[in-house]
């Protein structure tokens, strides 16, 4: 197994998600999810290969440290985005449904819809 290529591939897939996370469309994030799943699968495979000794560890420390940093960036972006939308959801929920007796915003409901693109 080529560990170098595997880590680079994971970084590319992670970069795609990082870009998607700063775009104002949830669709972009959804479309990048399969690549992120592939990245997880690649890392699992790498873990198994290292554990079985079929892959040489070589000098991967630098690349793996860079990957860890990029995972951290994506993690923070995701967390930031989630907090932002949660805040917005609370504002929107109060605009639409007011507050419940506990003083919290009313649950946010959205009518279901089907979107067809293309």
């Amino acid at each position, binding site marked *: 197994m080529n560990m170098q290529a595997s880590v680079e591939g994971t970084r590319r897939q992670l970069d795609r998600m990082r870009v998607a996370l700063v775009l104002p469309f949830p669709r972009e994030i959804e479309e990048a999810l399969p690549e992120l799943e592939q990245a*997880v699968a690649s890392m699992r495979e790498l873990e198994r290969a290292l554990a079985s000794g079929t892959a040489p560890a070589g000098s991967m420390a630098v690349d793996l440290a860079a990957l860890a940093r990029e995972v951290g960036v994506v993690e923070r972006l995701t967390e930031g985005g989630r907090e932002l939308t949660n805040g917005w959801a609370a504002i929107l929920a109060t*605009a639409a449904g007011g507050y419940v007796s506990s003083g919290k915003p009313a649950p*946010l409901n959205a009518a279901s819809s089907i979107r067809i693109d293309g």
Partner: protein
Amino acid sequence: MGSLLTSLLNSAGALRVYDRAFNVIENNVTNANTPGYVSQDQSLVAMTFNPAAGLGGGVMAGDLISARSAYLDQAVRSQTELLGGAQQQASDLAQIQPFFDTTGASGVPGALTAFFNSVSQLSVNPNDEVSRQGVIDASQTLAQRFNQNAGGIQKTAANVGIEIRNAVSSINDLAAQIAGIDEQFRASPDASHNAGLDAQLNAALEQLSQFVHYTALKSPDGGFTVFAGGQAPLVIGAQAYALSADFSAPQTAVRDSQGKDITAQLQNNGGTLGALLQTANVTLPGYVTSLNTVAQSFADAVNNQLSLGVDRNGNPPAVNLFQYNAALGAAATLSVTNIAPDRIAAATAAAPGGNGNALAIAQLATQPLVNGFTVTQAYGNLGGQVGRDIADAQQEQTAQQNLLDQAHQQRAAATGVSLNAEAAKLLEFQQAYQAVGKLVTTLDSLTQTVIDMVK
């Protein structure tokens, strides 16, 4: 993968776009109930992706896309015009109704009945002083009732005149407001995408449609050119042209800023001003003419019949019972002369001291004196016409209100801010972040494990 700088620039640019998209959601939610506001959406433009040329792709914010529909706005304005006219007409005519009592218990019908009863009483005792005075008293009451009826219409006409002044003033205020907004559109090249200005402009145009029928042509900068009645300039660019009301002639006129009479373009053509002009120039004068005809026909018939008889002394009457000024209106000026009771000609010349002429006057009650109708019938027809006009106006008001509600609903469904739609966008984001979060946590854990293994 692009260079670090390209990647950073991409992220920074995308974050700005992201910020703008959220601002649009914020504006939509904040202005969900702002008059004239329509839902906005942020369009995005793909940037060229060519790493070799240093172009890292990504997106940039494009134009704001407004959900405004000129067709639906026009439908609402047209219905607002029609409802404004119907409401005004119903309101004006409602002022008249109390003066037309058609039950016969009071007002002119009651006074007519009392008059003919007094003449019948005179025919029973033609030389009785009290009966003679009773006819004069009943005549005075009847004349007063006609006066009050005409006065009521005149008072309504005066109120309509005040309302015409107010409507013209409101139209001029709104025209100035629209011109002011147009000036802001012209002052800033980005203003054509300003949802707030757009909302103000459309709210003002919608208010204007309540007052007057107009044609609005949109200019490329986002402003409007407005023609009252379809022809008279009201707003051209940033300049408003004031209308004026002219009460110098019997027919109320509305003039454009050049002094040209534009009444024909506005009257009965929608909006409160159209209805007010119709009421002032057609409806009320029509009622006055009919009332004058009834009053004059009645007074002439009674005076004529009296002139054929002789008074208690056997002499032809020297003065009429009723008098009026036809030029000022018979109903408004009808009164009883200073005729003395003994000068009422109750007898015929052939039988002095008898009741022949009193009976003939009493029979006038059943004779077709006014266009083939008795006096009471003719007055009843007029009262009935007023009642039908009011009922028609009220029905029209109800119908137009329903149609306006429908137009509002159609527009709100197509262009209004849907909090549900905004909520759906946020829920999509929340779900996407949740999915990413789980995968990234797993990836982070795996990466740490692998790092530990290669150490």
